[in-house]
């Protein structure tokens, strides 16, 4: 039970500004995922919460208590590192109980806490092992277990699954999701993997160069992106962005795109450059759609249940995700509802 609040947080390394004016209000027991390309400052933000990095300017509050000057150990956070960071000279039990032992808690309390955590993570039979005798997935479980025993108000995950292989990653993702349902606590999770972000988060914070691009539930982020960056960041393959020149903006609410005149409701378009976004999964073959175009198909990647079609129309490069049982004819189509329109600065224009 905790909430976290950032007000005007700044951070720079030398002349390198990592985070500028970061403001965010977390909700109670929320699973918050910070996602963004590498170097966007998401890990720095997490380390600032944990106290491993100094806050240059601004304030961070946990439960309305300012934590800027608080020692890392007093912030009641627990961090799970990307590289696990297990103590190699201690066995799993000692690793998990180390923090409590430093606090000089009674033995029985330590034991119950470690056992509880081990039970949640199903690592009871591994307690006697040394980290080097564990597989990657097991190590990460132990690292999470170590965080649980500290009984933190906020869990901090720093790309915990990046070092695991694809199958294990999917499995651990489910485990972490279950864990959050089981122990209702705030979790802040940093990742660059949009799949993790979409599946785990209650709310996603999309960061780019130290700025928040958008905050919202996974549905909001997917269906209602605020700008081109967010629209392209979420979804694979990424959203097709087509440039619409001044002369193709025919009137206040009509543009010419891929040979179609597209009319929007309630939209006022300037006579200037615009961008149009269509997600690959919304481009359809052999279906009745309002608009169609005849592209030149360059490459088809078959993924089994679906295929990715790379194509070209005029000066535009597009990709489409099409179920693999659908034959691809000469024309590809799309509907009005599937079109996102952005202004020349990349900001979304809503109809």
């Amino acid at each position, binding site marked *: 039970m905790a909430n976290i609040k950032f007000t005007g947080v700044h951070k720079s390394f030398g002349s390198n500004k990592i985070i500028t004016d970061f403001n965010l209000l977390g909700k109670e027991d929320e699973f918050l995922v910070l996602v963004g390309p590498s170097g966007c400052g998401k890990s720095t933000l997490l380390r600032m919460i944990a106290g491993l990095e100094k806050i240059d300017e601004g304030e961070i509050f946990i439960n309305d208590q300012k934590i800027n000057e608080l020692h890392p150990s007093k912030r009641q956070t627990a961090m799970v590192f990307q590289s696990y960071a297990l*103590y190699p000279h201690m066995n799993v039990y000692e690793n998990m109980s180390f923090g409590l032992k430093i606090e000089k808690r009674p033995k029985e309390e330590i034991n119950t806490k470690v056992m509880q955590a081990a039970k949640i993570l199903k690592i009871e039979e591994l307690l006697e092992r040394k980290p080097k005798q564990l597989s990657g997935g097991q190590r990460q479980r132990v690292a999470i277990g170590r965080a649980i025993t500290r009984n933190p108000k906020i869990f901090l995950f720093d790309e915990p699954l990046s070092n695991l292989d694809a199958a294990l990653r999917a499995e651990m993702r489910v485990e972490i999701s279950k864990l959050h349902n089981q122990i209702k606590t705030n979790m802040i999770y940093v990742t660059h993997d949009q799949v993790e972000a979409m599946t785990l988060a209650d709310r996603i914070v999309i960061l780019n160069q130290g700025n928040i691009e958008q905050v919202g539930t996974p549905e909001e982020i997917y269906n209602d992106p605020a700008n081109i960056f967010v629209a392209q960041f979420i979804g694979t393959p990424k959203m097709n962005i087509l440039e619409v020149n001044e002369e193709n903006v025919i009137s206040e609410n009509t543009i010419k795109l891929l040979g179609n005149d597209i009319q929007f409701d309630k939209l006022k378009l300037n006579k200037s450059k615009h961008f149009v976004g269509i997600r690959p999964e919304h481009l359809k073959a052999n279906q009745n759609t309002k608009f169609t175009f005849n592209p030149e198909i360059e490459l088809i990647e078959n993924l089994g249940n679906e295929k990715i079609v790379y194509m070209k129309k005029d000066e535009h490069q597009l990709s489409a995700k099409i179920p693999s049982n659908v034959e691809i004819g000469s024309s590809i189509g799309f509907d009005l509802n599937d079109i996102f329109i952005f202004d020349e600065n990349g900001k979304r224009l809503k109809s």
Partner: protein
Amino acid sequence: MRIKNTILFSLISTFFLIFLISIWKILATLQGLSINSFNIEIILIFGFLISLAHLGIGDRIKSIYKSIIFSSIFVFCDGYLIQKLPIWYNVGVFLILYFFTNKISKYTFIGLKEEHSTQVILFDFLTLFGILFFSFVILFPFYMMLVTSFKTQIALLVNPLDFSINFSQDIKDLFKSYFVIFKSYKFGKYIVISTIVSVGTVIVTLLFAIPAAYAVARLNFFGKTFLSTSILIIYMFPAIVLVIPLYTIFSQLGLRNSIEGLLIVYTATTLPVAIYMLQGYFKSIPKELEEAAILDKLSWFGIITKIIIPLSIPAISSVALYVFMIAWNEFLFSLMFLDNPNSFTLSRAIQYLSGDAETPRQYLMAGSVVVTLPVLFIFVYFEKYLVSGLTAGSVKG
């Protein structure tokens, strides 16, 4: 290709054989054996023939029989037909030949077809040559030292280079030199002093080096780069430059002839390299481990004692070993600063003994064995801690 390789192989192996037999013959001559001629051409021809015959016979005879047959033929011709030599000499030659034929048994005609096989053979024999030659250079004096320490004065006068030990004599006579150095020359006391100085140096050095190395490896402070690069500069001063000014200072302070004085000098000389070695290892410990420890409420001191030191056991033990050996073997400073026999270290004591023309050589050698053995045992014992890979499993490697 094959003919060229075969000839090259035979030549290389022949030279190797000549080298082995020559060493044996030199040693035999030192034992008073009069060998008329070196017979290099005989060994050359035999070596060449054995190599070729080995290739020719191939797998048709089991390699152990092949080795025995070749060795016997060589011994018969060299030690019996050409010149009559005592049996122990011939046993030695047989063993050398046996070793040699075993070494070449892995080369076959088929292997020699490959283009690179001559390079492989050359490097094989060069490594072998290097190992044998340099271990001979090191081990031979050591062996002489050991053997001499078990000799009596008379035996040494008769033949100073006799390699054998007379085990038939009484065990008391055999170890007489050792009894004497401990009884009359107070070596027990010197061992205690040397041990105190060496162990003391190790402890004091580690006490200073571990925090210093951690600071250089991890913390940011003003002048860090200058400090870390200048650590080794201290090591560029030759000891002889320091020893005379230090002598005057120590005389003034009354530190001459004292263990404390030696501790200070030894620590000062070993500290730079100790810091340098340790900081390199500390840097290789993942930073996340320390961050995890900070979140586990550990202080800086706790991080060093509970995380860094347990993980650096290999580095710390090799530093300890290095410092111990330097302090145990150190000679120049102990020569300058110690002139009272009551505060001698072992190396200084031996120098003191050898300076006295009256001291029999076997006592000196026994003293040298006493100096050498502890380092040897400590090395063998510590060796198991020197294995790396203690950090395995902590982070994704």
